[in-house]
C-alpha cells in the first residue's frame, strides 16, 4: 500500500500517494491538465509551480513534473507568466552592451535582492547572469543561463520587473551568432555541396541495388 500524504491544490485538500510528482498528484486528484503541462520531463518550463509547506514561511518554486509531493504542501501552479519579450532583428542587431540598454533597460534597475536566484527551478545563478548582461558580457551570460527552461518563476519574484529568461535568450543568440568562433569546416562543406562535389556519389547510392547497399553498410569502416 502506498503511503499517503495530504496536499492542498489551490487550497483544496486531497490525499495522494507520497511517491507522486506534483503533476501526477494533480492527475491522481482528477485534474485533466491542459495548461501547465508540456514535456513532463523538465525541459519545457510549462509547469512552473509555487508551494509552501505548512508551518514554513518560505514560498518555494519548482517544476511540477520534477518535484515530489510532501505532506501538507500548499500548491499553486503558475502556468503562464506575462514576461516581456522584445522583438528584434537578429541580422541587424550588434553584439554590444548598448543592445541590452535599448531592449531590456530594466536590468539596470536590479536591486540585488537575489530573489530570482533563490526561486530558480533549475538552480541557476540568475542574478549573476543578469549582472553579466548588464556589463555586455554575453558569453558569460549565455554560459551561466544555459540550462534555463524559461519557466518565468524568477520574473514573478523580481521587484525590478526584469524578464530574466528573455534577457538570457537574447544573450545566447548574440553569443551563438556573433561571438562564438566561426566554424571553417562547416562553411567548406556547405560550399562543396553547393558546388555539386558529392552529386555523383549520392547519385550512385540512389541507384545501387539493395544487396550492394547491404554489403556497403555491413563492411563500412567505423571511426574509432
Amino acid at each position, binding site marked *: 500500500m502506498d503511503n499517503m500524504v495530504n496536499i492542498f491544490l489551490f487550497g483544496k485538500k486531497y490525499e495522494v500517494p507520497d511517491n507522486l510528482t506534483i503533476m501526477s498528484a494533480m492527475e491522481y486528484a482528477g485534474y485533466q491538465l491542459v495548461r501547465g503541462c508540456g514535456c513532463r520531463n523538465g525541459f519545457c518550463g510549462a509547469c512552473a509551480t509555487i508551494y509552501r509547506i505548512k508551518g514554513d514561511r518560505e514560498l518555494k518554486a519548482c517544476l511540477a513534473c520534477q518535484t515530489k509531493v510532501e505532506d501538507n504542501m500548499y500548491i499553486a501552479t503558475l502556468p503562464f507568466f506575462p514576461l516581456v519579450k522584445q522583438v528584434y532583428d537578429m541580422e541587424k542587431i550588434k553584439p554590444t552592451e548598448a543592445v541590452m540598454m535599448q531592449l531590456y533597460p530594466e536590468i539596470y534597475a536590479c536591486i540585488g535582492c537575489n530573489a530570482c536566484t533563490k526561486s530558480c527551478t533549475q538552480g541557476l545563478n540568475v542574478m549573476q547572469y543578469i549582472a553579466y548582461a548588464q556589463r555586455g558580457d554575453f558569453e558569460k551570460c549565455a554560459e551561466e543561463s544555459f540550462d534555463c527552461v524559461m519557466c518565468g518563476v524568477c520574473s514573478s519574484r523580481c521587484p525590478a520587473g526584469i524578464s530574466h529568461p528573455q534577457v538570457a*535568450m537574447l544573450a545566447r543568440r548574440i553569443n551563438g551568432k556573433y561571438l562564438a568562433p566561426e566554424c571553417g569546416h562547416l562553411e567548406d562543406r556547405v560550399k562543396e555541396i553547393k558546388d555539386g562535389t558529392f552529386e555523383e556519389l549520392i547519385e550512385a547510392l540512389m541507384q545501387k541495388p539493395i544487396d550492394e547497399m547491404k554489403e556497403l553498410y555491413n563492411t563500412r569502416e567505423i571511426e574509432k
Partner: protein
Amino acid sequence: MYSEKFQKSIAAVEAAREKNIALEPERMTAKQKEDLLAEYHPDYKKDEFAELKIGPNKGEKVPTELAEMLQAHSRITADSVNLSKPDYDVDVLIIGGGGAGASAAIEANEAGADVMIVTKLRIGDANTMMAEGGIQAADKPNDSPAIHFVDAFGGGHFAAKRDLLSKLVCDAPEAIQWLSNLGVEFDKDADGTMITTHGGGTSRKRMHAAKDYSGAEIMRTLRDEVLNRNIPVVDFTSAIELILDENGNAAGAVLMNMETKELLVAKAKTVIIATGGAGRMHYQGFPTSNHYGATADGLVLGYRVGAKLLYAETLQYHPTGAAYPEQIFGALVTEKVRSLGAKLVNGNGEVFMHPLETRDVAAASIIRECGARGNGVDTGNGLGVWLDTPMIEKIGGEGTIEKRIPAMMRMFEKYGIDIRKEPILVYPTLHYQNGGLDITPDGMTTNVKNLFVAGEAVGGIHGKNRLMGNSLLDIIVFGRSAGINAAKAAKETTVGNLTLDHIAKFENEIKSAGIETDSVSPKLLPNYTNQNNI
C-alpha cells in the same frame, strides 16, 4: 541513493568497472541483429497490431491503438461549423508548434507568405524541446553526405525513401549553418571546430550538440525567431479536422480551443502538418519519453482526407529510458551518455553488448537481457539494466558529466542519485514514430494536393528505424523545405469552395466495413486522471 536491495548488484558493477572500461565489445553481425530483432523487438509482436479495414492503407497493419484512432469517428460533423465565415484566412496554415512547425513558419514568412501556427499546447511544448543528444551533419573532413546516407539507410533497414534521405543528408550542413546564424550555440572548440561524437550506428563522429540540451537550445531559438517575426501563434488550440476545397485540395482546418472547446475555421491556401509523434499513445503499454501532446494527431487528420501512411507499423523504442526511480519512469536518458563512454551492464556486472548499436538493436538486446536471459535488475516497478555512467568520468576526466550532460545529472540528482558516482537503471521507452504520412521530396503528401507534412509526422525519411540525431536534423531540413514550398504553392493557388464532405464519406466507410467503435479522434491528449497514470 539506492536502497539496500540494489547494493549487491551495484557492487558487482563497481568491481567490474575497470575491466569493463577496457573491454571493446564486439558489434553484432547482420544475421545476429536480424534474429535478435525478430524475437525481441516490440515491432515484431504480431498480436499487438491490427489490420486497417478502411482508408488509403486498407489491408496494412498498424499498432492496435493507432488503428483505433485511424478508424474512429470525427469529433464533428460537417454542419458543426460555418465554412463560409472563416475565423482565420491565411496563405500557409501550420499545425504544430514544435521544431518542424517553427522552421516552416520562419521560412514561409521569409518567402513573404502570410503564415500562422496553431498548436494545442504552447509553441515549444514539443519533442524537439526534449531532444538531448544532438543533431547529425556530415561536415567534418573525414565525413561526407554519402557516408551519412549509408549509415542512415542501413540503420533504417534499407527501407528509407532514397530521394528523401538524400535530401536529408545533403541539406544537413546547411541546416547547421542556418541554426548557427540564428544564434544556436553548438559545442565548439576554441578554433570553431564542432565538437562531435558518435551516435548508435554512425560510422563517423558527426553528432553536433549543445550540451545535452540540444533540442531545447534549438527549439527556444526557433521560438524566439518566430516571435521576432510577429508570426501569429494560436496556442492551446488543436486542429481536429482538415478542410478540403471542392477540387480535393487541402484548404484549411477546423480548430478547437482546448479550454473553451469553441470551434473555429481556418482557411488557408496550403496546410503543413507538423504535429509530431505518438509516444502518448503508449503502444504495447510502454512508457514514453515524449511530450504530453504526442498522440499521432497529424496521421489521423491526414488519413481521414485520404493521405497515405508509410511504415506506420514501425516505432522506435529508445533503449535507455529511465527505469528508476519511478517518478521519471520512461524519461529519456540520452544516447549521448553512451557516446561519452558509458556501457550497458547487466545485473551481474557484465557488459552484454556494444553500447553503440542502432536503437532498435540496443532496445531488443536489453529486453532479451532482462527477459529470456534473466540478467536484469528488479526495480520494484519492472526490470532494468545498468548504464554505468561513472565510466564517463574515468574516461573523460572528472567534470565531464557536468559539462557535457548537465540535464542528465540534474534529472537524477533530484532523486538523490549522483550519476558521476553511481550507475543508473534503464529500460526501453517508446520514443519515436518512424513512420507517418508519405511525402515527395518537396514535402507535399503523395496524394493530397497542397497538404504538406514535416517532422515526426512524416514517414519514409528514416526507413524502419531512425538513427540518433537524424530527427533534430529532419525537422530542420524538411521543416524549412515545407515552409518554402508551401509558400510557393500558396502563390499559385486559388482556393475553391470549402467542404467537409470527407467526414460523412469516411463515416460511411466505417459503417460499410462493419467497424463498431465509440472512439473519436484525433486523441489530442492522453487521460491520466483518476490513477490512469502510466
